[in-house]
């Protein structure tokens, strides 16, 4: 018996956003990444062939991170001491793009400043041809100073600059507008707050195809259901035609998963938890895959093995039939 699968006919679609610019487009990237464009909920191939694959980003830091798990430090080895080398290693590990987190201090312990931020960015751009997301250290005034300097020094690269938050977005958005970059805004796990920040950013005149939103998520076992639900509701609102929710979604399963005890702790845990390295990467992978199924367009990871695992899962999700 033939069964007719009912199809939804949504009014809206997710914005198509392109990250990075090739030399012909005014940048230096060897390739660009395009996300968004969905007109259905994730992976409903019978309604629409996904126009763009969700992409995998790897996070690097401007100076050797002081609070990362030894599992991660071991995985990356010496590359971690130079953002250019690290970015190159990420590209080799199969990342689609790089997230550079600017910290408060440099490798030698001095306070980071706009010049060091620019140096780290340029080094990263030199080490990879992948598109780049650059995030400030998370303190409003420093974020603004660093991001302005980086935006000016990389005009035309179509970097994604962040983090825009509802109390601090003007400077970053203005810097992005002036230098042909994009922005990412983060809001704390709430549909309305996400929408409000998008309104504030677009009110400044930045086109919607240059904004990505980070709705904040939790790791597996640490609130992922709540984050999943917010993403799902944002996506449904987008498909229903609400323009201020039609932005591609960026989430950080890497940062979240590596905060959990299961990923961080290798000793004094039950044997049944299994091998530490594998468990940690699995935690990150499962978190990332769940969020991809919720509608994530960019997942930011930390461990090279997780890239392979998430990519395998993605291949299966993208395969028809």
């Amino acid at each position, binding site marked *: 018996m033939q069964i007719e699968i009912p199809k939804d006919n949504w009014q809206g679609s997710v914005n198509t956003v392109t990250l990075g610019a090739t030399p012909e487009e005014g940048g230096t990237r060897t390739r660009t990444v395009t996300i968004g464009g969905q007109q259905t909920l994730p992976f409903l191939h019978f309604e629409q062939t996904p126009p763009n694959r969700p992409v995998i980003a790897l996070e690097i830091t401007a100076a050797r991170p002081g609070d990362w798990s030894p599992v991660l430090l071991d995985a990356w080895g010496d590359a971690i001491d130079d953002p250019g080398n690290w970015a190159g290693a990420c590209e080799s590990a199969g990342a689609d793009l790089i997230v550079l987190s600017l910290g408060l201090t440099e490798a030698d312990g001095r306070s980071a400043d706009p010049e060091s931020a620019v140096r780290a960015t340029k080094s990263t751009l030199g080490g990879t041809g992948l598109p780049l997301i650059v995030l400030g250290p998370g303190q409003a005034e420093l974020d603004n100073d660093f991001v302005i300097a980086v935006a000016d020094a990389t005009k035309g690269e179509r970097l994604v600059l962040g983090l825009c938050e*509802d*109390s601090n977005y*003007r400077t970053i958005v203005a810097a992005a507008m002036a230098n042909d970059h994009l922005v990412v805004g983060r809001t704390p796990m*709430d*549909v*309305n*707050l996400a*929408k*409000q*920040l998008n*309104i*504030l950013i677009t*009110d400044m005149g930045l086109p919607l195809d240059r904004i990505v939103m980070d709705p904040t998520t939790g790791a597996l076992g640490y609130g992922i259901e709540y984050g999943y639900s917010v993403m799902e509701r944002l996506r449904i609102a987008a498909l229903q035609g609400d323009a201020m929710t039609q932005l591609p979604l960026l989430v950080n399963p890497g940062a979240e998963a590596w905060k959990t005890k299961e990923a961080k702790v290798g000793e004094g845990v039950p044997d049944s938890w299994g091998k530490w390295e594998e468990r940690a990467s699995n935690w990150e992978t499962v978190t990332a895959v769940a969020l991809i199924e919720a509608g994530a367009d960019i997942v930011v990871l930390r461990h090279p093995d997780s890239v392979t695992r998430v990519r395998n899962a993605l291949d299966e999700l993208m395969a028809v039939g």
Partner: protein
Amino acid sequence: MAQHSVLFEDHAEPVTVRAGTLLVEAARRAGIEIRQPCGGQGRCGRCAVRVVGGRVRRRSILRLSEEDVAAGYALACQAVVEEDVSVVVPPADQIERRLSTDHVAPEVTVPRGYAREQSQTVERALLRLAPPSMDDQTDDWARLRTALRIQNGIDHLRASLEQIRALGGILRASEWQVGLTYDTAGEPTGSARLIAIGPGAAIAADPLVGLAIDIGTTTVTVLLADLDSGEVLSRAATYNEQITRGEDVISRIIYASSGDGSDELKGLVLETINRLIATVCSKAGIGPGAVVKATVGGNSTMMHLLMGIAAESIRLEPFITSINAPPLLTAREIGFTMCPDGTVDLLPGVASYMGADITAGVLASGLRSSEETTLFIDIGTNGEMVLGSSQWLVSCACSAGPAFEGSGVVHGMRADRGAIEEVWIDGRSFEPTLRVIGEGRPRGICGSGLISLVAEMFITGILDKGGHIDETLDTPRIRRGSHGVEYVVARRDEAADGKDVSITAVDIDNLLRAKAAVYAGFNVLADRVGVDLASVDRVLIGGAFGKYINVEKAVDIGLLPDLAWDRFDFLGNTSVKGAYLSLLDRAAREEVADIASSMTYIELSADNSFYEAFTSAMFLPHTDLSRFPSVEASVT
């Protein structure tokens, strides 16, 4: 380009201007400076002039009613000269008055067709009793009751022990001719409760008077009414003495629950009321002993504190009162200085945060006499709202915090002398123009001023939709102060106390929370009954706050739903009006009881859609801008 002449009355010579010139510009040429507090953007209505000859093209008629336009009024900053015209520039104070008349609540009026015989439960009888003798051994009380039954059809009369004690003396002193006042309220048919008894002639000469009382958390209001004619003889209002023990109901409850707090608060409100009773009686030349009845409206906390009932359960989950509908009491029991056995009728409430002030308010608002979908609101520290029509009523209450009362903000104050009550900001220079209560220099900002200020800051772009001050704007009025970013509303050289009056980022956040809570309440109410807020026919605003609020600005910030202005009505103190109607008319009193028992109350803290509605309202004017089309038009 065509030239036209513009004649300003009181000026002999007309000025000649090109077609397309604005009236303000023509006035300037004629040497007349018309005030434009909003910077000529057609928002404030302060530049209204009257065109008495010829016609102008009105680019905008914001703040003008249809009648205004019909009478020739135009906003000088928006009126384009296209032919010869003559114009009257009204004095500034006249415009102020015209614009603010809608804020003045109507006085209480006697209900049409009021007739004591049909409406009043308090009645009087003049009885001549046959004196007792050796042949007629009937006791005094039975003698009185028999006479009353025969003459007035009252089969059962109740009296207090004090009254029985005095009875024999009064009967003999008055030589068996006595006047009786009794109340049939709350008694079975044919029954009554004795209020007063006295020598016949004296009682008959006394006017029959009663009190309508509203116990507000901030203000207590008392009306003295003649129960024969229904006329209000005198009125008085003053701050509730309890205010020194906490400004809002929650802090009063906390105060009452420790030590002698409860007795103290009861004493303070009684002092307040008794002082007001003395005032209204002396104004009317009546002795307080002649007051035979008092009907009281007020929120549930005020009622509990008045009765000396522990109010702690009102504050704590699951927010339960001891009693919503108190029985009829006497002045002796409650402690009012009036006829000791006079009836004290505490009107019924619905829930902890939906008290008799609101049920009385719904009665007074006339909400139930119309098929139209009506929203009745009373905003203060708590926002109470009732949605309904003649067929149904649903209500909820939300905690708005103290921002609307002018406290909880750094330079907030009560709507008192020196309070900034309205603000206009020039969209280019960001310089404010203020209206101050008492017309002196400003000391602080009251609730309505705060709403006005935030609305103007938003419309002129000082605030973004998230309520953040734009520090990049070029004006010395935006700066970093000890409380973070702030906007200076009055510099120290402009202010009364030589201190800057400013509004801080934290203040704005507080106001946003307050307005979001109120709007979210509307939202939940409307959703619960499947009504679209945009289709609400009337919005009736009660309470003191509503008397001064500017609807346009309240809509701009998303406090009130975006409806045509003519759907809003200000009713003033509806609680005391409802108490007055209930005092006069048994049918009105029955209706209050019916309102209280038929109203569905939604406890918002138990409603899972409230938080969602709240966060979406935590934005200017709202995350869903399509709910505020008129604001959308003015900000984009």
